[in-house]
């Protein structure tokens, strides 16, 4: 799947979209700085995001497509983000690139930073271009929750490794004889924090409770996400989605997790993590998803020289981290004011907000934290709150709750969506923010490319 995306990256269907740019007063006319290279997003694509287990994809489709888009040597480097790694393809970026028929002369590496892995892939690309090491980099992310590596138990692994070293038959038989039934129990990869052993859903429920977010507020926000996603899908706004063919099955061309329901239906669900009084349910959480995404990032000069029309400038970005226990999912709260400060912008300057929706409760908690002077002063060392994004600018084409959240691939979707929304809605600045396991967070400012 990843290689397919890389391939479409090479074919690079550049879409032009014109709309009226309304004149607004911004703190800054542009974020371009004389001494800093302009870096642009040329294209962003993704596979449909599929609920894990709904369409079984056994492996990456190596070499699925063979069309040639850009010259083979136009891409200098490939970076991919992923979270749960397959042992056989620990550098999945390289395998995907080779499988997609990219030149074997293009180096590739894989990065991991939980739910912001593809953000890390993109910002690494930005860094390499800014440093003058590359001119064109493909960055992306991939996640296959339908096929995660399941390990033998630690005891079994130890026995098997010792078995390799055993020299005599007696030693081997002794080791085999030591295997007990308990050894055979497999070990599933956990979606739990290593440092606190708490699952993310559990932490989200506590976070929601800490900020006094009610079940109804969460259900309402989830319903909003599904409704907006459905609208965007029906209106054909999700242009970053490209179809692909699952061997032996139909062509998949749409995200399949978008299911607007009713408040009554959602209220019926029992809490998924904290029982019986918790508020986080299956309906107001993002679900396990398969999917891949990719973007082509270039220096503006190179893009123009090659005849591309860039979609947006990638400007300032920040990474933050905080307490992985009680503030696990507050990344956006910490990163938003920081990136705005870096860029010299205010909340009012932002026209398009795309926040990663891990849980409805997490988004609501972040919004409340961003609106609290006490929180800003006590925990962030700031004089006052940064404020909340206005609803009419926030996640208007759905979000991770409805579209799905393939851990490693969401970042590119967020950035591409901001670029597309800026084009469609005619704003100038967009903001991406996301939280990630480990108590980390990320935010990036994106500026519309003059049309």
């Amino acid at each position, binding site marked *: 799947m990843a290689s397919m995306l890389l391939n479409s990256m090479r074919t690079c269907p550049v879409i032009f979209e014109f709309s009226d740019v309304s004149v607004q007063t911004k703190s800054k006319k542009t974020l371009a700085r004389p001494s800093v290279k302009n870096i642009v997003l040329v294209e962003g694509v993704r596979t449909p995001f599929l609920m894990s287990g709904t369409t079984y994809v056994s492996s990456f489709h190596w070499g699925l497509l063979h069309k040639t888009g850009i010259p083979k040597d136009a891409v200098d480097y490939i970076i991919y983000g992923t979270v749960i790694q397959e042992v056989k393809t620990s550098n999945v970026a390289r395998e995907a690139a080779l499988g997609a028929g990219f030149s074997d002369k293009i180096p590739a590496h894989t990065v991991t930073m939980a739910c912001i892995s593809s953000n890390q892939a993109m910002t690494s690309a930005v860094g390499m271009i800014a440093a003058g090491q590359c001119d064109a980099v493909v960055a992306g992310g991939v996640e296959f929750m339908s096929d995660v590596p399941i390990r033998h138990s630690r005891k079994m692994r130890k026995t098997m490794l010792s078995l390799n070293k055993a020299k005599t038959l007696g030693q081997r038989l002794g080791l085999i004889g030591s295997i007990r039934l308990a050894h055979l129990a497999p070990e599933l990869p956990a979606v739990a924090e*290593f440092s606190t*052993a708490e699952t993310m859903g559990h932490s989200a429920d506590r976070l929601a409770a*800490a*900020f006094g977010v009610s079940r109804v507020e969460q259900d309402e926000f989830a319903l909003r996400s599904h409704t907006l996603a459905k609208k965007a899908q029906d209106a054909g706004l999700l242009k970053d989605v490209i179809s692909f063919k699952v061997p032996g099955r139909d062509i998949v061309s749409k995200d399949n997790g978008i299911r607007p329901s009713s408040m009554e239906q959602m209220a019926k669900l029992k809490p998924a993590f*904290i029982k019986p*009084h918790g508020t986080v349910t299956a309906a107001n959480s993002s679900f396990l998803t398969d999917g891949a995404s990719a973007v082509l990032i270039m220096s503006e000069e190179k893009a123009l020289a090659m005849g591309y029309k860039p979609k947006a400038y990638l400007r300032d970005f920040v990474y933050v981290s905080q307490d992985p226990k009680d503030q696990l999912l507050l990344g956006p709260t910490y990163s938003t004011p920081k990136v705005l400060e870096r860029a010299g912008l205010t909340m009012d300057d932002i026209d398009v907000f795309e926040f990663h929706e891990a849980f409805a409760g997490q988004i609501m*908690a972040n919004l409340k*934290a961003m609106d609290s002077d*006490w929180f800003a002063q*006590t925990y962030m060392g700031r004089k006052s709150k940064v404020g909340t994004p206005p609803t009419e600018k926030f996640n208007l084409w759905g979000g991770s709750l409805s579209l799905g959240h393939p851990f490693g691939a969401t970042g590119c979707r967020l950035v591409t969506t901001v670029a597309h929304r800026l084009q469609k809605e005619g704003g100038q600045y967009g903001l991406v923010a996301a939280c990630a396991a480990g108590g980390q967070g990320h935010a990036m400012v994106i500026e519309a490319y003059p049309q």
Partner: protein
Amino acid sequence: MSDFFFFFFYCSSHQARTHVSYELKDDVAVIRLNDPTSKVNTLSVQMQSELSEVMGEIWSNGAVKSAVLISSKPGCFIAGADINMIQACKTSEEVTHLSQEGQKMFEKIEKSPIPVVAAINGSCLGGGLEFAIACQYRVATKSKKTILGTPEVMLGLLPGAGGTQRLPKMVGLPGAFDMMLTGRNIRADKAKKMGLVHQLVDPLGPGLKPAEERTIEYLEEVAVGLAKGIANKKVALTKEKGLMQKLQDTVMGLGPVKQKIYKTVSEKVQKQTKGLYPAPVKIIECIKTGVEQGREAGYLAEAENFGKLAVTPESKALIGLYQGQVICKKNRFGTPEKEVKKLAILGAGLMGAGIAQVSIDKGLNTILKDTAVEGISRGEDQVYKGLNTKVKKKALTSFERDAILSNLSAQIDYTGFDSADMVIEAVFEDINIKHKVLKEIEAIIPPHCIFASNTSALPIKDIAAASKRPEKVIGMHYFSPVDKMQLLEIITTDKTSKDTLASAVSVGLKQGKIIIVVGDGPGFYTTRCLAPMLAEAVRVLQEGTGPKKLDTLTTSFGFPVGAATLADEVGIDVAAHVSCSEFDLGKAFGSRFGGGNVEVLKTMVENGFKGRKSGKGCFIYGKGKKEKSVNSDAEEILQKYKLSAPPSVSSDSDIQHRLVSRFVNEAVLCLQEGILTNPVEGDIGAVFGLGFPPCLGGPFRFVDSFGAEKLVSMMRRFEDVYGNQFTPCQLLLDHAKDPSKKFHK
């Protein structure tokens, strides 16, 4: 008009109440406990009367369908009954009456027409737990501060407000015995498994308010939801029991099985207490009466036995220790000018590594320095093992263990000492080595850095003699094993500055220690008391009492560790060091510290019998061996130095009192000489540092309860045989002369 009356009524009733308040949330009455005069809630007279008043109002209000009982104090639900209330009683009948009042109040709660939910965050102990288990439903936070338990037995008492009757029904006989006889604290998750609480609530992080405040609010929200659910029958009060549970209950309910349990428990108690502690026996009696003869008889037995126990000297001694320990866990010396953030420890032996362990797990950055790589490797291993034991017991996660270990830097050079705030040396007990180390260190450490010596006997002023800044030198005497022994003896010289003392105390408290502060002198307080007793123990051994018999004599007197085993634990070489006349203490105190022949210990050391650390001492120690056997070679040595036992002072009781009186006399002398500033610290130091019998409450309380006169006349009898080692000190004589003089009021 009616409004006016309502207003009037509202104001008058609420103004009078200071400890208990309530408000209605829909049809749920939320009752909040908050004693404004203390950091914790206790079931004081005031609290109890306000509670019954509030309950009365709630029960008479038809609009209230359920109630939630919650504390507004962070980290404390109800810490127990008010001990002062019990102490104020003059007779056992008065205490029995108190108990019956408590029983009645909780019975009313148990029979409440509306369900009452106890929402527990923080300590829920003693009377607090009895209150909670009288409620219909219990929900508790999973906070580390949430602990449930019945610690009454540790005060020589029993749960006297229905606890002995309700607990067996709730957690079963074995569980109830375990809780009430050990008094141990039970964490929330364990309490849920035992059936002590119905529901758990996760503690929250900070939101729009501080974490603790929001957690209490959240607990209340959940409890209110549960209360409503119980009132309209949506939440079940009892869980459907599994097949195994049913089976177990049936078996436990069988007459012969119950009898067997009573018998086993009684035997175990007898074995562990040696009949010195009356409370466990009474607890068994109360439970048995309740189970076998029914509620009425059970309640009566509980109230009467509670009354009886409250006036026993054992209970008074244990309560005295509890209160003394509370005092010794407070910082009485103010905040130091500069908080110690970086600690350096010299010597990675048993003590050094132990000190490191209790420092790093409190977040202190700690350097552990030794002279050889082997030394620090062993030391680090000890720290790792200590922490890993906690991981195995699930008191820590492996991640927390690793994070704690990152606070430790084990090294063989002085890197980082230039930014240390305090150095604690735990090097070999030799004044010349200590001087050398002190000089080396002072050349590197910053001017504000404190130099503390963990010596057990060398006077601090002698060590400080080599210092350029004696005001920064102090003694911090830890006890081995450091992670288990709670006591820290801090020694000041007349040159030690107040700020240095404040720093040492604050570090000690951070390490979780109970602290006594004593004056300088050979052996300070603890070692000085121990030395004459050990010298006497050697004499007793020479007189033909075997090590096993000596152990039995001392443990049956109440010492948790027998005298012979104690010598092995302390180290025979150390014992020789402190008790022989040619060494430090003997040199300082002369023949008063004599007793057994010096050569006995010396010969043992020469033969390599240095105690547990060398595998052989009075006993032989081996890995995995439970029963230790007497070291026959040591017995041979004793045979060689055999003395004849004078029959007039060699009965079992005489031997016990010879040992104890020398200890006690030295303790009183320490107070007389001003080494100790008060008897409370003397008692705490003796019990927590040296294992003086807790049921006696420490040497000073022992003099009070045993009678100074009786003790003096006994010592005079020993003096006639052995001489000045048994001469009572002046302060003891004063007390003997005037029976109204007591160390404890």
